[in-house]
């Protein structure tokens, strides 16, 4: 039997507000343990939370960018559970009245656009971190992350493959970056996701039993965990087994997931309205004010690149999938560089360097003006394409103007006709047989002679110019 995969995601994104959600502590990654803390975020007795308004702004902004309706009477709730990284033994979250509901995000998979439902987006506080010291046989609690504001984005079970889920995650990330509500730095844990996956026989309407996967620290891990789970569930079902509803822990090193807890020992979080905080009343004016701050979103930007610059859809998609990359592209083009050339460089060699150096998308170490200068050097014929690649490598290595690099490495092409003519004459004089061959119609002779001239010029001859000169000289010979 063939099974259809059904996936829903829960994505947690840390909001990049200046301060934490319920106190004045700085919201910043890292720092010595327990230095970004105060009596409030470390849950000391008698302290009270005060909601950071920026958190609500950011959550609404994300919600509007994901086409959600905003809950104008919203409230916060306590989620109760014991764990040493949660100093109050409850997390302030939202239960039945999340700030944003019923939205959607369009994703493009294999050229097809698909609409994925967003069930809800709610605000909550992050927990701290436990550092386990096996040597000393103890755990140490670091509360720096306690009270860092989060939004949890819950998707509808609309995704049908790990690939779709991956594109959805990338799309969400792009929207969060564009709206500037989150840094989305996976390696710092500012974007995390839980996966819900089930299978059902093809054609069946009802969903199968789902399993939830936790401890996923990268998009790659998310995809791997989904592929693993898809395979695991297929095997169980194909062998006549049944899927137990359970929470599984993904182990990215081993590439497998193990049962964390079953449905029977699912926690009862005893949610109830947070009595220390008042309901949030969101006015129409407030929503409109936030709406006006939403920038051009990736989808709109992509369309603009296609219509305005004539870029292929794929190129436009890649360029706009990171706000930084797209901003860089726009700035370079606005300086007068050809969009097509900028796009080629950014998607080609620049992207390769970023990958190799494991930089964040769009983290280009030189300014758009320098990329423009590089492109100008090629267009003026000062350097060849291959020389330009060398210049680019230097630009990634250290801050230096492209012109200076060309000078330092002696990469400028010889376009001076006198100097080139001397080389042409020299090569022709040394290869009389090739002249004969050329006259006899052997085209390969032209290639050979070109190669000889390039060798003599140490690769600096402008190929277009010498091609022209060589042909003229051969015709005269």
């Amino acid at each position, binding site marked *: 039997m063939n099974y259809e995969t059904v996936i829903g995601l829960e994505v947690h994104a840390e909001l990049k507000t200046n301060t934490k959600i319920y106190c004045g502590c700085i919201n910043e990654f890292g720092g010595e343990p327990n230095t970004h803390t105060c009596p409030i975020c470390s849950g000391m007795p008698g302290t*009270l939370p005060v*909601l950071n308004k920026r958190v609500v702004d950011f959550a609404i902004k994300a919600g509007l960018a994901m086409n959600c309706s905003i809950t104008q009477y919203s409230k916060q709730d306590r989620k109760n559970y014991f764990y040493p990284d949660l100093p109050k033994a409850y997390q302030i979250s939202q239960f039945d009245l999340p700030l944003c509901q019923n939205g959607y995000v369009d994703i493009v998979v294999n050229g097809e656009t698909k609409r994925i439902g967003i069930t809800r987006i709610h605000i909550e506080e992050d927990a701290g971190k436990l550092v386990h010291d096996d040597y000393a046989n103890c755990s140490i609690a670091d509360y720096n992350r306690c009270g860092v504001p989060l939004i949890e984005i819950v998707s509808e079970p609309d995704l049908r493959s790990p690939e779709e889920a991956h594109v959805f995650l990338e799309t969400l990330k792009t929207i969060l970056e564009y709206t500037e509500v989150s840094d989305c730095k996976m390696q710092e844990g500012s974007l995390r996701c839980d996966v819900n996956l089930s299978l059902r026989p093809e054609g069946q309407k009802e969903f199968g039993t789902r399993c939830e996967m936790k401890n996923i620290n990268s998009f790659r891990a998310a995809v791997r965990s989904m592929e693993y789970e898809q395979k695991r569930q297929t095997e169980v079902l194909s062998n006549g087994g049944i899927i137990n509803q359970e929470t599984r822990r993904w182990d990215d090193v081993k590439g497998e997931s193990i049962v964390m807890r079953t449905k029977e020992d699912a926690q009862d979080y005893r949610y109830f309205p947070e009595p220390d905080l008042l309901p949030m009343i969101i006015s129409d004016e407030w929503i409109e004010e936030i709406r006006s701050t939403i920038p051009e979103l990736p989808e709109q930007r992509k369309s603009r690149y296609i219509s305005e610059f004539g870029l292929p859809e794929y190129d436009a998609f890649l360029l706009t999938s990171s706000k930084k990359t797209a901003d860089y592209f726009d700035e370079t083009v606005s300086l007068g560089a050809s969009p097509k050339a900028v796009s080629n460089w950014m998607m080609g060699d620049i992207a390769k360097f970023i990958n190799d150096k494991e930089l964040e998308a769009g983290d280009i170490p030189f300014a758009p003006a320098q990329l423009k200068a590089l492109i100008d050097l090629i267009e003026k014929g000062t350097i060849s394409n291959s020389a330009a690649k060398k210049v680019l490598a230097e630009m990634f290595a250290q801050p230096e103007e492209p012109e200076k690099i060309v000078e330092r490495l002696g990469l400028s092409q010889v376009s001076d006709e006198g100097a080139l003519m001397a080389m042409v004459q020299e090569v022709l004089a040394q290869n009389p047989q090739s002249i004969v061959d050329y006259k006899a119609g052997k085209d390969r002779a032209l290639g050979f002679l070109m190669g000889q001239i390039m060798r003599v010029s140490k690769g600096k001859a402008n190929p277009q110019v010498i091609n022209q000169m060589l042909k003229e000289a051969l015709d005269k010979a």
Partner: protein
Amino acid sequence: MHTLTAHEIRDRIKNKELSSVEITKAYLDRIEKVEDKVESYVTVLQEEAMQSAEAIDKKIAAGEEVGALAGVPVALKDNLCTKDVLTTCSSKMLYNFRPPYDSTVAKKLKDADTVLLGKVNMDEFAMGSSTETSYFKKTKNPYDLSKVPGGSSGGSAACVAADEATFTLGSDTGGSIRQPASLCGCVGMKPTYGTVSRFGLVAFASSLDQIGPLAKDVQDCALIYDQIVGYDPMDSTSVNREYASFEKALTGDVKGLKIGMPAEYMGEGISAPVQKAVLAALESFKAMGASYEEMHLPLNEYALPAYYMISSAEASSNLARFDGVKYGFRAEKFEDLVDLYAQTRSEGFGAEVKRRIMIGTYALSSGYYDAYYKKAQQVRTMIMQDFDKAFEKYDVLVTPTTPTTAFGFGEKTDDPLQMYMADICTVSVNIGGLPAVVLPCGYDENGLPIGLQIIGKPFGEAAILNAAYALEKTITKIKPAL
């Protein structure tokens, strides 16, 4: 000297008839003399008190501006956080806890230049009506040392009644200021929810808790309230509004005041001497030009069960942070993380606290939430409407504070329901978020004080304080013989 009221001390210090050191010393001597019998304090800050008294005297001598309660000796309930000073909630769980911050009220009293004498006893985490659940000691009723002082602010009430402080602050979740104030013959007030910041009050039930004064007379009560009332950005439930002086609003004129007397609080279960004294007080009001009539608060009978559901549910969550990980008590022996929690909480909490945590956990559990917690919240809304309706017709409501005068130690500890009934007259006020002041309106045949409760509209403190001020003048107060 220790019998002086706060306003008397304020006036004498202002006129340089009295120094802060003198009055502080008088109180420390008084504590020395009677504390063995009363046992109202958990912590006495002898040296610190003398130091701050000296500092205040210096300021006065230097002609510097001093706070409104300069030199007045005060004690705080031990659930109000005081920077670097033990704040135990009378629990083993916090036997060693010194907060690195002041509660907003502690800070305000510091700014008013009061002298902090110490921290006073209470029922563990404010759960109880007799202060018998304190981990540390049993505070006695100064009027009869064989009787309880009431609770949970029993230490706060006994302390004032025994003249071991000029005034104290307590917290009131279901009657915890008013019931002990009544049993100990003090004036106590539970202000409107949201008027006094809860920041730094170790939470019992966040939506019901409110801090208020316990004082020697009504004027003090108003004077202290003037100092602690006000918006606090650190407490999201604190109300942002302006308050005129409540002390200055005291006229003693109650002509035309319309008083409602809820029949539900004058019937079965309320002892004869209490009913008699309350009726006598109502007659006094009438004699002063006010009017009163019997009326009904039909839904009030559901207040007590609703209260125990809501307060226990919130408490189960509020007290979850006491887990032995970060501060306070930690069990010595445990096997793993879950065992650390279990042992610490088993050993660190007393029986009544555990009972409330269990009730509250149950009420919030999946499958029971709608039947208990949610239902209780609906009842709460209806009780509030009951009050709203009453206040369309009446300016204030008058009831007894407690069904009986002070009871004996151990009398109700075996039957939690009996103990909970001690709050029957007071809990609905918390449910409604209303202000209420209590004051002695007579004494029973054994000389034990009887408390009268005057309930006001939201933010109606001026009206209830003024009514209390008028009635107080008709009452001859009897000091406990210690």
